[in-house]
């Protein structure tokens, strides 16, 4: 197993190998059109040891954990949970995705937007 896949299993408790590529996650994902790689394909890439490719995609940062794919996944691979693990691989190295100085609407946005973005996009 590749290093990325090991970490995904450790952080998420989910097993990407259980995925049989039904594509339900990509069909229900509200964000799929903004992603470099659709969720089902990201899981397939993890299976074949191309986790590093998924890590460098925008997919994991576009996902907002709405839990649609998690509720509907027939194999409990739960791509939305796997993506959290993939985000953590980067964030736990101290690399933040969100740059506070670049948020133009930081004053007017509801507090919870900033807190939740911090939870998902910073370590």
């Amino acid at each position: 197993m590749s290093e990325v896949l090991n970490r995904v299993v450790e952080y998420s408790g989910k097993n990407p190998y259980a995925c049989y590529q039904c594509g339900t996650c990509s069909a229900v994902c509200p964000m799929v059109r903004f992603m470099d790689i659709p969720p089902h394909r990201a899981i397939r890439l993890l299976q074949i040891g191309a986790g590093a490719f998924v890590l460098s995609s925008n997919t994991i940062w576009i996902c907002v954990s709405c839990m649609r794919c998690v509720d509907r996944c027939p194999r409990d691979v739960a791509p939305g949970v796997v993506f959290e693990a993939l985000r953590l691989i980067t964030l736990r190295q101290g690399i933040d995705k969100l740059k506070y100085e670049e948020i133009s609407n930081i004053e007017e946005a509801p507090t919870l937007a900033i807190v939740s973005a911090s939870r998902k996009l910073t370590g």
Partner: protein
Amino acid sequence: MINVKMLYYPGCSVKRNALEYEKKTLEILSKIGIEVYELDNWYCCGAFYSLAKDDLMKHIGGLRTLIKAQVQARKHGTNKLLTLCPMCYNVLKRVNHMLRENPENLDTLALFMDEEEKYTIGIEVLHLLEVLRDNIDKLKRLVVTEVKDVVVAPYYGCTVLRPREIAFDNAENPEVMDNILRALKIEVIEFPFKTECCGAYQSVFNRKIVFEKSGEILEEAAVRGANIITVICPLCKYNLETTLLSLGKKLRIEIVYLTDLLSRATGP
């Protein structure tokens, strides 16, 4: 009338961005006989439930809030904890659920806390919509004026309906809000985009996504003849409103909190 007591956790955004939502909601709740006690010295619930299995520390905000509620539950004689913000509801209910399923996690989390008492998993987390649903008959009796010239598209967002273990209605076609509005004789449209994503916190990261996603919700509501979208979440409201603004004056539609509209029917 027998009054029902409830503890109340407002959360950051209700107090900073949605004071009117809170005011109107508390007015309506008091009219239907619900006594609300805001938690003392409450703090952040965490806003987003952490999905990492190996990092329990991120649940401490939620757990501390629940323990605070437990302490004050004894004082007020109720174990019900009301939330208005769906994100708070989502986090607190999921933390509660996680602890019930894995009580051993409670011991691990206790290692991070010195001052707090042990949590007995006895708090019941409720969202405003559930409370209104359970008091629909009392709400009906409050109606003083018919709300005219209003056609509503009810918009739920995602966090009160997903994941399924914490949902209080069907995630595919929720009807709680529809039924509350209909009970108050307010016209409601069939709205297939009622649980479509507004873009969530991408409003501070990648706003183009929010404008596109929220834009579709607004346009669908307008096409179906709605002139009001009712919301329950400060973030949904912000995303829909800023998108509406970015569209110029193209759409004649107003984004209002559900309880704001209800109070138009029930009077001051």
